[in-house]
């Protein structure tokens, strides 16, 4: 456990993706089975046991440490698990440090109450970093900036195979993944996936550049709306049902309404949306249901989820992916027409005769829930990854607003010496109100100049944040604007980024909050 804790600690502090991958790779190479498999499960969020409550931890600590000293320490550190891990007094002659495997095995059998007693024994045996990692793990608060996908990427890079191959077998496996490691290291066969509801690597679209159209024949393509939800894959096989996000995470537990509506033995590709009376609701309504472990009855009623289908990858065990798009589409339509389909509908094909006609449709597409258009080649098979040519996304033009830079914060990693995170505001009643934050959209040269400007125009410092003179106008591009109770302005922008730096424009001529409100969807 101490080694795994050291990995988690290093991951927490390492901002760059490359650095994280290398740390994980090294750990998986140096650590034996089954320890590394349990570590992989922890990193991919596949560990489940009765969580220990913060109150239990506090009580354990107060059994060992003076309450006043603990109080001052907690005030200083500000995090319970970290305070407890640092303040825990060493007990001479403690047992050897437990492995993660042992901890997982014992916790699986423990109740919340009996977990407390085991915890005390482990805290005595681990070092400070080990205690911190254990306490974070056991309270469900482990966050080190590693997604399940990144952990799998580390495995794929180490084995020099495409990530898709791991995704394809992943959901047929369970911790501690001994057969997976054996396969990746060439010591065993590819894990069997037949009959298991595994994730099918997605086919992704290239962004369409304006001059691409000149070279494309409109007669070879189909068009669909690009929906503003999240891409999902519905897999039903061998009596099991899964709802996967685009990264291959199983998000089914939060969407029992969709799972209940899924038919047997099928793999479908579509967009998860909140629909009311057939109308797509703004993305932030869907967001209420994302990143949750479950959904309450209230949630299910207030934010009804639907999947708008656009492809079928498998029907009754027949892999349709090698078929051309048109054929898959007609299989999808005839399957859909064969029965009432609760919570599922079809993404319609948009008839068009020329690119110009389609361009006009796209420009008119300000309707709620539409982000633009998708173009799909009629004869293209379903290929994993992002092949160039068969699928394009053609997003509608972004909205823009002229906002005033208010605060700048240092970035992370390579940008840690630059003020690269910008909070900008719009005018309301003669004062600026923050309306969003942007971290991208500028070139390295522009970043240098912005950084210089921030340093030269600082009026106040708050730790890593600088407040600047209200003078610089940033033209911010964004996809849409929504109501939000979390922000003082009452608004939240979707995908804001710096479009242009308006060195020339006086701040007094920047936009107002009212102007943004007129763009609400």
């Amino acid at each position, binding site marked *: 456990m101490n080694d795994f804790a050291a990995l988690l600690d290093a991951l927490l502090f390492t901002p760059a993706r490359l650095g994280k991958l290398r740390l994980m790779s090294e750990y998986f190479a140096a650590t034996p089975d089954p320890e590394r498999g349990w570590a992989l499960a922890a990193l991919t969020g596949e560990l489940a046991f009765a969580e220990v409550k913060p109150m239990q931890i506090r009580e354990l600590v107060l059994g060992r440490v003076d309450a006043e000293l603990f109080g001052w320490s907690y005030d200083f550190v500000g995090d319970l698990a970290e305070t407890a891990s640092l303040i825990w007094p060493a007990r001479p002659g403690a047992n050897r440090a437990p492995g993660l495997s042992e901890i997982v095995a014992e916790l699986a059998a423990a109740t919340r109450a009996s977990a407390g007693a085991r915890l005390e024994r482990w805290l005595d045996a681990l070092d400070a970093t080990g205690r911190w990692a254990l306490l974070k793990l056991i309270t469900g608060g482990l966050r080190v900036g590693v997604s399940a996908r990144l952990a799998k990427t580390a495995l794929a890079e180490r084995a020099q195979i495409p990530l898709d191959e791991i995704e394809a077998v992943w959901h047929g496996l369970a911790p501690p993944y001994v057969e997976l490691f054996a396969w990746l290291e060439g010591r065993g066969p590819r894990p069997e996936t037949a009959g298991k509801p595994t994730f099918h690597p997605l086919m992704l679209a290239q962004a369409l550049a304006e001059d691409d159209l000149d070279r494309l024949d409109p007669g070879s393509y189909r068009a669909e709306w690009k929906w503003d939800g999240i891409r999902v894959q519905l897999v039903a096989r061998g009596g099991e049902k899964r709802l996967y996000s685009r990264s291959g995470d199983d998000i089914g537990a939060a969407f029992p309404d969709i799972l209940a509506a899924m038919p047997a033995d099928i793999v479908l590709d579509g967009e998860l949306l909140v629909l009311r009376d057939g109308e797509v609701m703004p993305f932030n309504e869907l967001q209420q249901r994302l990143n949750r472990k479950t959904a309450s009855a209230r949630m299910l009623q207030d934010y009804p989820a639907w999947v708008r289908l656009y492809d079928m990858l498998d029907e009754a065990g027949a892999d349709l992916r090698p078929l051309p798009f048109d054929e898959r589409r007609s299989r999808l339509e005839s399957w859909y027409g064969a029965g009432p389909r609760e919570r599922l509908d079809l993404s319609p094909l948009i008839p068009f005769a020329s690119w110009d006609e389609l361009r006009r449709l796209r420009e008119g597409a300000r309707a709620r829930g539409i982000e633009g258009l998708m173009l799909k080649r009629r004869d293209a098979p379903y290929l994993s990854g992002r092949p160039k040519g068969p699928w394009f996304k053609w997003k509608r033009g972004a909205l823009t607003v002229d906002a005033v830079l208010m605060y700048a914060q240092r970035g992370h990693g390579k940008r*840690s010496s630059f003020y690269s995170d910008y909070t900008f505001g719009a005018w309301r009643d003669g004062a600026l109100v923050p309306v969003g934050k942007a971290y991208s959209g500028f070139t390295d040269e522009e970043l240098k100049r912005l950084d210089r400007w921030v340093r030269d125009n600082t009026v106040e410092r708050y730790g890593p944040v600088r407040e600047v003179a209200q003078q610089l106008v940033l033209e911010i591009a964004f996809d849409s604007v929504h109501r939000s109770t979390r922000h003082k302005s009452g608004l939240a922008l979707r995908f804001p980024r710096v479009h242009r730096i308006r060195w020339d424009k006086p701040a007094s001529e920047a936009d107002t909050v009212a102007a943004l409100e007129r763009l609400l969807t």
Partner: protein
Amino acid sequence: MPNPATWLKPTGKGLYCEPGDFYIDPARPAPRAVITHGHGDHARANNRQVLATAETIAIMRSRFGDEAGGSLQPLAYGEWVALGDVRVKLVPAGHVLGSAQVVLEHQGTRVVISGDYKRRPDPTCPPFEPQSCDVFVTEATFGLPVFRHPPDAQEIGRLLHSMRLFPERCHVVGVYALGKCQRVLALLRRYGYAEPVFLHGALQAMCEVYERLGVDLGPLLPATGARRADLAGRLILAPPSAISDLWSRRLPDPVIAMASGWMRIRQRARQRGVELPLVISDHADWDELTATLSEVGAGEIWVTHGAEEALIRQASLQGLKARALSIAGFEDEAE
């Protein structure tokens, strides 16, 4: 036997010893000063008469030049000298090169002012020598039980490991110019790192002082002027203020490290953009502080700069009498 509180007093200028007519680490220029060690919040320029170890005097000369003080009197560890009605002795504090505890004897009472100190071995200076006394004046920089510094070998090992894992990047470690810089260098040498280490310009003068005083730091090169490509895979030491600012931009994809006791707290390290926090401190950690309080056997403990309240609480749990002593001019170990 009068209580030392009647003759040793905190004033706006610093801690004043009345029967000897001198200040200890005065915050503003004083006629007579006894200096515990060379850090800026303890040794200041332009005192008229200075008493300190020869090493501390050398450090002050390097820092302040002609303004180091009117007369500079070196005193070897362990030798007594009389100042007015007080006998004074300097004893190693183990903090940085030249650092001393000040032992005062007056009318049969002995007071020890620890200055800043640590208890673990440091290859660049002699170890702390506990002195039994009636009053022990202790620092409390890390006076909270969350501060337990791990072994140096472990922290240097993490640095060397990171250098092996990222051989194409350079590693830049934030260190104080006096003490931490030379200790990190000496530890690196002890644990087998023999390559040249590149130094930020602000660190060079103090390294030269240490070498003149006989502390071997191994091969050192200036970072300024070094070609970017030549710094890949290298180790660079720089003052904390430079590690994540304009200066570090010239470096090839640096791993930002920082050697400080404060690195124990993750949020502190993250706020500073530190990628590799190294918990290496020249101050006593909680266990060293509490062990020292018992060891010196003082009837009374005065606690200065740092987390006084927690250490006073701990002293009372250990059955010791302790109180806070507010002295002007001392800072927390700045980062």
